[in-house]
Structure formats: structure tokens, C-alpha cells
């Protein structure tokens, strides 16, 4: 039995000359699920929530608590970015375990996709997707620092501090590690499922899918918490007693 997987995701079709890969379609689906869930939960909003609204409020409150634990009372301002990152990543990761996703479920070349690979693949198993989120975090952190400390403060932070330019390397290394961590974890999970499905197609892959559920939420949490930590560092007012509570 030959295990065949490709690191870059296969192209499904071309949209005005731009290749649309299986992972991009998965990312669209994850977004669609989140948007549909939000719309369903906020129609006819009641003061005392029931059912779906209650559940969504529970999730959002949990994220808000997390933000406030790490960032203090200013944490509320970070909730949109951090919350969205967490929700998107967890949704995309969990959807990647579903039936029609990825290599292990498509035994033969698919005739109707451009690359003859599967039409769907876990969104975060594409470095482009995770790197895009990391780039957004990077830009957001830099803008936050500029807004807190001014352009001069930003430049000073990057170039000064013994040894000089160390912070610059750190600022670049952080988004790189964010992207690679998420990408590596999800890709490794994909390959693991592929190999396990090839070895023992009955029952055993379910165990690994369970593990993938766990990994999916942990990696989403890590991404969100790290983003929060970077933002807190970037918005720290030196000497004004910025209170950074580390961890929980």
C-alpha cells in the first residue's frame, strides 16, 4: 500500500487565472460555518438567552475572560482579533477531520479537479493559510506598538536594547514560529491519519481523529494566547505601570 501525500495542496480550479486550492475551499467553508453560526445565534436575540445564543455567549465570554486574564482590564480591546483567530482555527481544524476532507479519504485520482487531488483539505495544513494569519498578527502588533509608543518608540524598540537588533530578529521569528507551529501540527495530524488509515482502516483512525480534535483546539488556543501576549507586550506603556499578568 503506497502512502501518497503532497506537501503543497492540490489546485481544484482556477478563478480568473488564480489557482484555488483545496485548503482555500476548506477555509471558505470554515468561515461560512462560523458566519452561519453567528447569524443563527443572533437572530431574535433575547435578554435571557436560550439554546444556541447561550452557547455562543458562553464561548465569547470564555474568550473575553481569557483576554482579561492575560491583558488586564484593557483585554476587551483585543477580543476581536484573538477571538476570531481562535474560532477560525478551531473550526478549520475540526472540520479537517470530517469525511470528505483530504488525502486519506480519496483513494483514486479525482478527475474533476485541476490537480486530480482531493477537493478539500484541512485549511491549516497549508502554510499559506497559517502564514497569512501570522502576517496579520505581525502587522497588528507593529501597528499597536506604533500607536502606543509612536514611530520613534517603535524604531527604538526594534534597533535598540543591548544587543541591538535582537528585537528585530525576535519580531520576525515570532510570526514565523506561529505559522510553522500551527502548520506543522495540523499537517502532521493529516499525515498521521493518512498512515493510520492505510495500516488499520477499521476503528483505529477514530482514536487518532479524537487526538486531532484535542490538538486542534490546543493549537488554536496557543495561537490565540501568543497573539494576545504579543499584543500586550506591544501595548505596554513603559513606566506607566502596565500590568501584565503572565499565564493563568
Amino acid at each position, binding site marked *: 500500500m503506497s502512502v501518497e501525500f503532497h*506537501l503543497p495542496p492540490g489546485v481544484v480550479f482556477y478563478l480568473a487565472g488564480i489557482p484555488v486550492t483545496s485548503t482555500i475551499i476548506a477555509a471558505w467553508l470554515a468561515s461560512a460555518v462560523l458566519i452561519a453560526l453567528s447569524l443563527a445565534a443572533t437572530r431574535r436575540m433575547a435578554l435571557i438567552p436560550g439554546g444556541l445564543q447561550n452557547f455562543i455567549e458562553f464561548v465569547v465570554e470564555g474568550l473575553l475572560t481569557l483576554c482579561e486574564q492575560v491583558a488586564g482590564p484593557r483585554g476587551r480591546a483585543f477580543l476581536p482579533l484573538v477571538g476570531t483567530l481562535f474560532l477560525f482555527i478551531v473550526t478549520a481544524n475540526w472540520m479537517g477531520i470530517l469525511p470528505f476532507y483530504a488525502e486519506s479519504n480519496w483513494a483514486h485520482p479525482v478527475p474533476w479537479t485541476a490537480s486530480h487531488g482531493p477537493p478539500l483539505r484541512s485549511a491549516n495544513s497549508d502554510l499559506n493559510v497559517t502564514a497569512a494569519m501570522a502576517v496579520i498578527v505581525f502587522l497588528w502588533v507593529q501597528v499597536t506598538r506604533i500607536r502606543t509608543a509612536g514611530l520613534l518608540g517603535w524604531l527604538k524598540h526594534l534597533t535598540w536594547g543591548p544587543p541591538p537588533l535582537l528585537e528585530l530578529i525576535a519580531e520576525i521569528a515570532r510570526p514565523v514560529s506561529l505559522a510553522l507551529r500551527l502548520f506543522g501540527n495540523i499537517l502532521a495530524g493529516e499525515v498521521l491519519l493518512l498512515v493510520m488509515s492505510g495500516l488499520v482502516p477499521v476503528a483505529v483512525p477514530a482514536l487518532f481523529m479524537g487526538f486531532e480534535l484535542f490538538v486542534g483546539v490546543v493549537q488554536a488556543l496557543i495561537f490565540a494566547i501568543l497573539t494576545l501576549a504579543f499584543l500586550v507586550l506591544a501595548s505596554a506603556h513603559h513606566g506607566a505601570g502596565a500590568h501584565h499578568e503572565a499565564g493563568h
Partner: protein
Amino acid sequence: MPELTPLAAGLAIGLGALGPGIGVGMGVSKAMEAIGRNPEASGTLFLPMIIGLAFAEAIAIYALIIAFLLFGRIG
């Protein structure tokens, strides 16, 4: 020497998993110790332990990515 690429891939992940393996073991053992001393701390400990483990494991994942890249270059 392209014929050494499979060896490189194997070594990349094999050696790359040594450090994180030790790191994860140390982290969890300290957590277990702390829970042993104070069983009520298990709730407080759980999340920071998981977060710490994810950081340690990330290093192994970087090595795994190199192994995948090399694996793709075989032949």
C-alpha cells in the same frame, strides 16, 4: 549527495525529537509532582501545562517539517 536524502530525513526528525521529548517529559513530571503535593492544584495546573507542552512540541514540529521537505525531495 542526493542518495543521502532519506537518511537526512530520518535523522532530521529522529534527532529533532530528542530535545522536545526530554522537555515534555520534564514538564509533565514537574506537573505530576505538583499535583501529588497538592491535588487541588490540578485544575490550575492543567492549562499552563498544556500550553507549555505545546511550546516544547513546536520544536519537534519544526524538525518534522524539515523531514517532510527532505522526504519530498527524494529522487
